[in-house]
């Protein structure tokens, strides 16, 4: 940060000038983290699908919601009749297992894992290789693998920088419409600027939406303070805002639960959509409560209504009312960010838009260095640092993501602690590549790391073929669209990186006739 005219007293500078400056620095400082957030967040549109690919032992078993709830309750009544609470997440067309969480009355310190995947038909626990699955990328997207709460705060700060960069970028830009159609290939800095503009303008509504709604996802952490001025007991805000039924206490009188199937059918009628989640408080007690929530698909808002029943008699107790407009707005923003409402086509569209976000941040980072590189002159320290960080993030991080998926197939399925080893593979690969590249000249480092990323991504379908029976050809024959799409996507990403390696290996383009200086004021 070398001043850039900020200390010129008296001189009135226009917004376009200052915002160009602010845009450049906000984008640079937050850009490296934002790039990783964009990639992992984009992958998270397919979070359950990634988990399914990472547990190839589990085959889809079609079961109706009532059947899945029935079998899950049968299992839970056997293992935890005295639990405080059960959460049952029913399977849908994207997930194959019934996911249950138990809140035992006396938590067993040796047995921490009270979260289980059940077979929706039989209700028995599914056995598959231990993995964090799609959860890993999803969590990294907003926690950055840092201890709580620092990762979330840092992610929020970067999201704010992104919001600032979007606003300042729009102010800086005077020819949004013209830039939409302008992409001059192979002209050095000019091309990076064009690419940055095209990806930014093309995706502007998406980028603005995803950034703002992303901040809203953690709003109770980033901006809970207004609650303190209106509620003496802050918990009261959540309770009145979301219409959460007040907790009941156990009566101590044993009484079995009523059959769940009629309640689910009744709830689906009252809520007007398929059921997705069943919460049972004090199962096996006369005061048991059953809460059934409506699925998120089809409704943009991710706050869906719930119906509550008496667990011992099956009597309908209440349905959550229509929330306040502000709460509804937050629910819609949350839904827009998570894309839980979206069908397969729209999720692919989200995926592509997410990639344009990564492309916008990446080209912006490259532009920052391209603009400061003087032909023939030795680069200054900050420029060298930025260039090396660019390589470490744009080329090495995707290789780390591939290593995570690759490790899932290469680490033996029965090995103890393999889930953590998969995560280690991701970060060791990323870290080592980020260091090793320092031994090469920058241009060669780009080519080498893009080449490695290409090899890693292309190796995923190969490793899948070598270690499982669900590789491309059998999956094609079975009509297993998920496994086919996964292998082909990895291959496509690998080809993309191979092209990047080839392009980066080409000699530097000659800067066209105009001098560097004359181009300078065009953009920050």
């Amino acid at each position, binding site marked *: 940060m070398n001043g850039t005219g*900020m200390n010129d007293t008296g001189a009135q500078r226009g917004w376009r000038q200052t915002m160009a400056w602010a845009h450049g620095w906000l984008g640079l400082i937050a850009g490296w983290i934002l790039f990783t957030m964009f990639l992992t967040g984009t992958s998270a549109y397919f979070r359950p699908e990634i988990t399914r690919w990472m547990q190839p032992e589990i085959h889809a078993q079609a079961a109706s919601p009532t059947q899945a709830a029935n079998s899950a309750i049968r299992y839970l009544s056997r293992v935890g009749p005295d639990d405080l609470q059960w959460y049952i997440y029913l399977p849908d067309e994207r997930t194959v297992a019934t996911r249950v969480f138990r809140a035992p009355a006396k938590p067993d310190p040796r047995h921490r894992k009270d979260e289980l995947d059940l077979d929706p038909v039989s209700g028995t626990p599914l056995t598959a290789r231990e993995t964090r699955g799609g959860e890993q990328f999803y969590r990294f997207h907003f926690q950055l693998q840092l201890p709580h709460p620092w990762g979330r705060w840092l992610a929020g700060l970067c999201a704010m920088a992104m*919001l600032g960069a979007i606003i300042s970028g729009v102010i800086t830009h005077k020819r949004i419409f013209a830039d939409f159609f302008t992409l001059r290939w192979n002209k050095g800095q000019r091309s990076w600027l064009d690419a940055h503009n095209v990806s930014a303008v093309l995706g502007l509504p998406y980028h603005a939406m995803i950034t703002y709604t992303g901040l809203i996802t953690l709003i109770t952490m980033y901006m809970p303070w207004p609650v303190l001025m209106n509620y003496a007991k802050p918990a009261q805000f959540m309770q009145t805002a979301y219409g959460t039924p007040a907790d009941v206490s156990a009566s101590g009188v044993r009484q079995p639960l009523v059959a769940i199937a009629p309640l689910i059918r009744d709830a689906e009628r009252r809520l007007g959509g398929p059921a997705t989640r069943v919460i049972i408080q004090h199962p096996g007690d006369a005061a048991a409560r059953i809460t059934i929530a409506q699925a998120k698909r089809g409704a943009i808002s991710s706050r869906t209504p719930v119906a509550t029943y008496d667990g011992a008699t099956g009597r309908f107790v209440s349905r959550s009312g229509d929330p306040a*407009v502000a709460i509804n707005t937050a629910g819609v923003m949350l839904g827009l960010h998570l894309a839980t409402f979206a069908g397969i086509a729209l999720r692919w569209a989200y995926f592509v838009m997410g990639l344009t976000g990564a492309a916008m941040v990446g080209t912006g980072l490259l532009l920052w260095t391209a603009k400061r590189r003087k032909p023939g002159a030795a680069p200054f320290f900050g420029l060298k640092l930025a260039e090396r960080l660019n390589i470490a993030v744009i080329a090495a991080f995707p290789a780390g993501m591939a290593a995570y998926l690759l490790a899932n197939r290469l680490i033996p399925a029965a090995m103890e602690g393999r889930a953590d080893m998969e995560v280690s593979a991701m970060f060791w690969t990323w870290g080592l590549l980020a260091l090793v590249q320092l031994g090469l000249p920058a241009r060669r480092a780009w080519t080498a790391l893009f080449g490695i990323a290409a090899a890693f991504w292309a190796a995923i379908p190969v490793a899948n073929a070598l270690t499982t029976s669900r590789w491309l050809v059998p999956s094609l024959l079975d009509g297993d669209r998920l496994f086919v799409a996964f292998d082909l996507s990895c291959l496509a990403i690998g080809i993309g990186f191979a092209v990047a390696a080839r392009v980066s290996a080409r000699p530097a383009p000659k800067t066209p006739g105009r001098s560097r200086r004359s181009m300078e004021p065009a953009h920050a």
Partner: protein
Amino acid sequence: MLLKPRHRDDKGKAQVASGQTIDGQAGRRWRGGIAMAWRWITAILGGYGFTVAAAMLSARILPAPDASARIEATGWPMLLSFLLYAGIGLWALHEVRLGRISMVIWGGALVMAILLKLLGVRA
């Protein structure tokens, strides 16, 4: 970057040529660095404090005759606060006069904090 640093460098060179010591230039650089750091601290931390205070104040003074209006009065300042934060932060990077930035952002946050203290939690 823009045209300014070159402009400033030219001036610096001219001063060195006219007999001024390098120390004077280094001192000015040093002061410029502190001013720049203060500008960013004010934009990021001060801007957040200002936004928090403004969101709390508007939540407190928006009319809330019943329970659902109270949710709206609490929720909307939360939802819109990030726009204010972005706006005030960018303004801190735009405005030349650092004293004015400090006064508006830190001073404004302080005044609003005092008001909040006086108003107290809504009954």
